[in-house]
C-alpha cells in the first residue's frame, strides 16, 4: 500500500479549521508562496487516473480524517455538506472528521458540469458506493484484527467493535494513512435507510460559519503573491470590430504593465486593481469600433422567431400529428412568451491564471473544471497535461454565466505575463452585457377538451434558441476565442434537449406531441437554471388553468383528474392540505396553483401563489409562495428547503420583473437599474414542505421550482383580475384594470 503524501499532519488543522476552500497547500518553489493559509491555493496534485478506485472518491489519513473528493462544484447549493453526509453515513463516522475537496483537475475525477440538478444523483452515488466499498474492505481488515466474523462487527464514530469479544479498533488504525487500492464493485451493499443517522438530517453547512465570519474565500478573494490585475475591454456590441486603439496613452497610465491587443480582444494588465480599472477607462475613451446593428429589434423578436424558426421537428410524445378532432370536442389554443433573461450573479466573473515553468494553472468558479481545461487547451494550443483548472467557489451562477469566459481571458493574459498570477475580474456592465442569457421562447399550445372535461389531445410548438452553449472543449464558445485576430468560430446549432425540457405534459392525455422550432436569435444564450423548463412549464401550467376554466373545473382537481402518478398526486394533495386550497373569491386577492416534475424524471414540485391587488395604484404584490417538494430520499432537508425557497424567490423575480432589453446598438440592460431584480420589499413570504422518501433514490432538487412558480403567479393574477397574462414579465401594465371590480 502506498502512503498518501497529500495529507500530512500540521496542514490538516488548517484544512479542518477553514472548512471552506478545503485544499491542502504546498509551497510553490521559486514563487515565494507564503505559508499563510489564505495565500496558498495550490494544492498538491493527487489525481488518481482510475475512476473505479475507492481512493478516487474517499481517502483516510493516519488520524482518521476522511477526505471526500468530488468533481462537482460548490455553487451555493450546499453540495459539500450533502456529499460529506452521504460518505459519513455509509462509514459511520463523525461528520466533523470529514473534509471535502471539490472540482480540481489535479485532484478530483472528471464529473463534467455541475448542472441539471445532477450532483446528488451523480457524484453522490459514486461517493456513496465508494464509501460502502471502503466499509466492506475495512470490515474485512477489522475482522482479522479483532478475531471476529464480519457479521459480529458494528461501527460507531469510526470505531469498529466486535460484539463477540468486545474488542475495538479504530478505522485509522486499520488504514494507517494508506490507500485502499481497491475498486468499487457495483455490488457493495449500501446501508439501509432505516439505519440512517446522518442522511435525512438537516446537518448545518459549516461553510456558512465562514461566510458569516468573513473567513470564506471566494474566487474574487484569492490573493496570490506577486499577483497582477487585468481588465478586458469588451466591444460596445456583439459583432463590433476594433478599428483603432492608440495604446501609448494607456501604456503611460500609472501602474500599467502591459496592454494586450489581439484582434478584437483588448486588455490591460496593471500592478494594482484600481490602476487596471483606470487604464481600462482610458482605453475605452480612445478605442474606435465599427459596429454592426443587432437584428431583429426587440419589438419584432417574437414575430421573427415564429417566422424564421426552422420548420420544426417532433421531439417528444407520440411524434405524430393528432387525429382529426372529434366534433363534440372543444379546441383551445394559446400562445405564451418569455424574454431573454439573465443569470445576474451578484459577484462578477473572475479568474486567476498563472503561466509558470511550462504549466498553466487557472483558478476558476466554472461549473466544469475538466471541460474548461479542454476549452483552454483549444484556445491557447497547449496539451491538456500542461493545464490545471482548480475550482474555487464564486458568487451563485445559476447556470452557464461568464465563469468560463473569464477563465479564457485569464489564460490568454497569463501567457502574456510569465511567472505572475494574473487576476481578471469583469466589470458589472460587462457581466450584464456579455453573459449568455436564458433564451427567449415562444410557446403555442393547442388542446382538445371532450364533453366530460378531459383533455384528449395536446400539441406544443416551441420556438427557441439554444439553452446550452457551454464550451465543452471548443474555444469558439468563449468570448475571447471569438475576438482573437484569428478567431475561433462559434459552432452554433448545438440545440439540445434543453429547449423542450418539461414541454411534454406529465398528465395523461390520449395523444401528446411537442414540436421544436430551433431559432438562431440575436443575443448570446446558454443554460440558465432549468433551461427551457421555465418557459415550457409557464405555458403548460398556465394553459392547464385555461383548460380547467373552460371545463368548469377547479384547476387543482382538473390536474388530479389527469394524473395517475402517485407521487405527483401526493405533492399536490399535500399542498392543498397545508394551504387550504379553495376558490372562494376574496376581493383583491388572487390564488394560483402550478405543478411539475422537473425534467419529468427528477423532483416533484407543487406551488401556490397568492397575490394582492392595489387597485388605486393599478399594481399587485406577490404576498406568499408555498411549495411542496418530493426529491425522493432527502439527504439534507434544510438544504432542499433553502434551495427550493431560493428558487421560488428567484423565479418570481424573473417572472414579475425581468427581461433583457436591447436596441440595434447593443444591450441596454447594463446595470441593476436597467435590469431590476427583486429587492427585499418585493420578496414574498415563502414556505416549503419536504416529502421525504428515505427508501427511494435521491432526486435533483435545485431547479424544480423555477417553472411552476411562473405559472402559479400568472394563475393567481388571473384569479384576482380576470386578465390572462401570457407574456413574461407579468408586469401590472399588462393587466386590464377596467375588468377589475
Amino acid at each position: 500500500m502506498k502512503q498518501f503524501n497529500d495529507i500530512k499532519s500540521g496542514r490538516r488543522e488548517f484544512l479542518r479549521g477553514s472548512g471552506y476552500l478545503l485544499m491542502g497547500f504546498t509551497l510553490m518553489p521559486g514563487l515565494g508562496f507564503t505559508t499563510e493559509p489564505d495565500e496558498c491555493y495550490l494544492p498538491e496534485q493527487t489525481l488518481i487516473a482510475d475512476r473505479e478506485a475507492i481512493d478516487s472518491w474517499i481517502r483516510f489519513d493516519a488520524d482518521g480524517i476522511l477526505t471526500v473528493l468530488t468533481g462537482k462544484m460548490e455553487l451555493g447549493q450546499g453540495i459539500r455538506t450533502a456529499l460529506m453526509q452521504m460518505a459519513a453515513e455509509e462509514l459511520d463516522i463523525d461528520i466533523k472528521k470529514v473534509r471535502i475537496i471539490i472540482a480540481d483537475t489535479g485532484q478530483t475525477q472528471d464529473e463534467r458540469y455541475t448542472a441539471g440538478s445532477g450532483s446528488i444523483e451523480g457524484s453522490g452515488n459514486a461517493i456513496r458506493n465508494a464509501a460502502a466499498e471502503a466499509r466492506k474492505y475495512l470490515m474485512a481488515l477489522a475482522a482479522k484484527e479483532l478475531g471476529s466474523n464480519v457479521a459480529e462487527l458494528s461501527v460507531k464514530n469510526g470505531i469498529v467493535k466486535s460484539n463477540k469479544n468486545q474488542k475495538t479498533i479504530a478505522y485509522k488504525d486499520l488504514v494507517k494513512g494508506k490507500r485502499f487500492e481497491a475498486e468499487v464493485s457495483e455490488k457493495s451493499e449500501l446501508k439501509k435507510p432505516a439505519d440512517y443517522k446522518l442522511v435525512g438530517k438537516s446537518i448545518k453547512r459549516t461553510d456558512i460559519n465562514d461566510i458569516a465570519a468573513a473567513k470564506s474565500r471566494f474566487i474574487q478573494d484569492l490573493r496570490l503573491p506577486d499577483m497582477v490585475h487585468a481588465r478586458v475591454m469588451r466591444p460596445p456590441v456583439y459583432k463590433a470590430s476594433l478599428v483603432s486603439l492608440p495604446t501609448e496613452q494607456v501604456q503611460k497610465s500609472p501602474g500599467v504593465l502591459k496592454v494586450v491587443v489581439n484582434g478584437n480582444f483588448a486588455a490591460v494588465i496593471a500592478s494594482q486593481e484600481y490602476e487596471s480599472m483606470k487604464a481600462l477607462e482610458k482605453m475605452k475613451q480612445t478605442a474606435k469600433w465599427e459596429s454592426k446593428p443587432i437584428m431583429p429589434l426587440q419589438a419584432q423578436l417574437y414575430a421573427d422567431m415564429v417566422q424564421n424558426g426552422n420548420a420544426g421537428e417532433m421531439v417528444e410524445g407520440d411524434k405524430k400529428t393528432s387525429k382529426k378532432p372529434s366534433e363534440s370536442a372543444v379546441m383551445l389554443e394559446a400562445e405564451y412568451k418569455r424574454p431573454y433573461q439573465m443569470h445576474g450573479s451578484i459577484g462578477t466573473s473572475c479568474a486567476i491564471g498563472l503561466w509558470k515553468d511550462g504549466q498553466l494553472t487557472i483558478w476558476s468558479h466554472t461549473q466544469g473544471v475538466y471541460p474548461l481545461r479542454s476549452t483552454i487547451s483549444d484556445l491557447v494550443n497547449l496539451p491538456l497535461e500542461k493545464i490545471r483548472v482548480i475550482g474555487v467557489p464564486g458568487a451563485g451562477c445559476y447556470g452557464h454565466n461568464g465563469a468560463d469566459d473569464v477563465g479564457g481571458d485569464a489564460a490568454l493574459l497569463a501567457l502574456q505575463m510569465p511567472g505572475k498570477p494574473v487576476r481578471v475580474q469583469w466589470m458589472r456592465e460587462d457581466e450584464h452585457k456579455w453573459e449568455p442569457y436564458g433564451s427567449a421562447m415562444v410557446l403555442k399550445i393547442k388542446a382538445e377538451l371532450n364533453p366530460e372535461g378531459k383533455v384528449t389531445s395536446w400539441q406544443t410548438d416551441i420556438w427557441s434558441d439554444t439553452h446550452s452553449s457551454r464550451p465543452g472543449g471548443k474555444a469558439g464558445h468563449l468570448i475571447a476565442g471569438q475576438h482573437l485576430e484569428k478567431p475561433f468560430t462559434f459552432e452554433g446549432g448545438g440545440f439540445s434537449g434543453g429547449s423542450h425540457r418539461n414541454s411534454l405534459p406529465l398528465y395523461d392525455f390520449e395523444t401528446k406531441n411537442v414540436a421544436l422550432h430551433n431559432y438562431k436569435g440575436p443575443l448570446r444564450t446558454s443554460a440558465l437554471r432549468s433551461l427551457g423548463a421555465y418557459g415550457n412549464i409557464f405555458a403548460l401550467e398556465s394553459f392547464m388553468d385555461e383548460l380547467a376554466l373552460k371545463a368548469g373545473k377547479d384547476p387543482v382537481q382538473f390536474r388530479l383528474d389527469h394524473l395517475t402518478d402517485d407521487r405527483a398526486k401526493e405533492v399536490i394533495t399535500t399542498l392543498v392540505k397545508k394551504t387550504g386550497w379553495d376558490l372562494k373569491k376574496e376581493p383583491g386577492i388572487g390564488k394560483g396553483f402550478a405543478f411539475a416534475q422537473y425534467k419529468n424524471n427528477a423532483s416533484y414540485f407543487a406551488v401556490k401563489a397568492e397575490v394582492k391587488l392595489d387597485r388605486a395604484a393599478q399594481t399587485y404584490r406577490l404576498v406568499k409562495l408555498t411549495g411542496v417538494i418530493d426529491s425522493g430520499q432527502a439527504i439534507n432537508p434544510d438544504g432542499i428547503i433553502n434551495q427550493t425557497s431560493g428558487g421560488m424567490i428567484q423565479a418570481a423575480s424573473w417572472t414579475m420583473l425581468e427581461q433583457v432589453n436591447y436596441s440595434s446598438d447593443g444591450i441596454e440592460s447594463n446595470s441593476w437599474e436597467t435590469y431590476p431584480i427583486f429587492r427585499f420589499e418585493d420578496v414574498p413570504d415563502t414556505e416549503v414542505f419536504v416529502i421525504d422518501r428515505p427508501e427511494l433514490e435521491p432526486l435533483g432538487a435545485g431547479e424544480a421550482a423555477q417553472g411552476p412558480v411562473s405559472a402559479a403567479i400568472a394563475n393567481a393574477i388571473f384569479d384576482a383580475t380576470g386578465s390572462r397574462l401570457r407574456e413574461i414579465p407579468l408586469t401590472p401594465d399588462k393587466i386590464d384594470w377596467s375588468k377589475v371590480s
Partner: protein
Amino acid sequence: MAELINIKVNGKNHHVTVDPEMPLLYLLRNNLRLNGPKYGCGIERCGSCMVLLNGKAQPSCVIPGAAAAVYEVTTLEGLTKNNVLDPIQEAFIEEQAAQCGYCISGMIISAKALLTENKNPTDQEIRQALQRNLCRCGTHTRIINAVKKAAAKMNKG
C-alpha cells in the same frame, strides 16, 4: 497621485499611500486585505460592498478612500471581537441564512446598522433597511428571520 491616508478601520489606525480618489472598497480589500466587502456593481446599487461609516451602513465602492478617512470604518471582519461573533453573525449561522454567501457581508452590515438604531424592528422595517442589498440566490426569507433572531438575542443581552 498617491497620498498618505490615515484611516481607522475595525478599531485600528492604518497609514496607506494610495491614489486618494481610489474608492474605499479597493483600499479595504487590496491594501488592508479585508475580504468582507465585495465588488458587485461599482455604482452603489447592490450592497455587496457595504461597510459601517461611523455606524451607518454605506456602500464603499464609490466614496474615495481619502473622503472615507474622516469616518471610523467597520467591515464584517470588525464585528467579530476577540473571536467572539456578533449576535447577528450567530443568527445568520443558526438560521443557515446563506446560499452562495456573496451578499452576506453586506446583509450583516446593513442589519448591524439597523439593530443599533432600532432594537425591535418589524418585518417591514427590516425589509426597508435591507432594500439596498441585493441577493440573487433568493435567501431573503432566511435573512429576514436571521435579523429578527439577532434582535431577540441582543434584547436578551
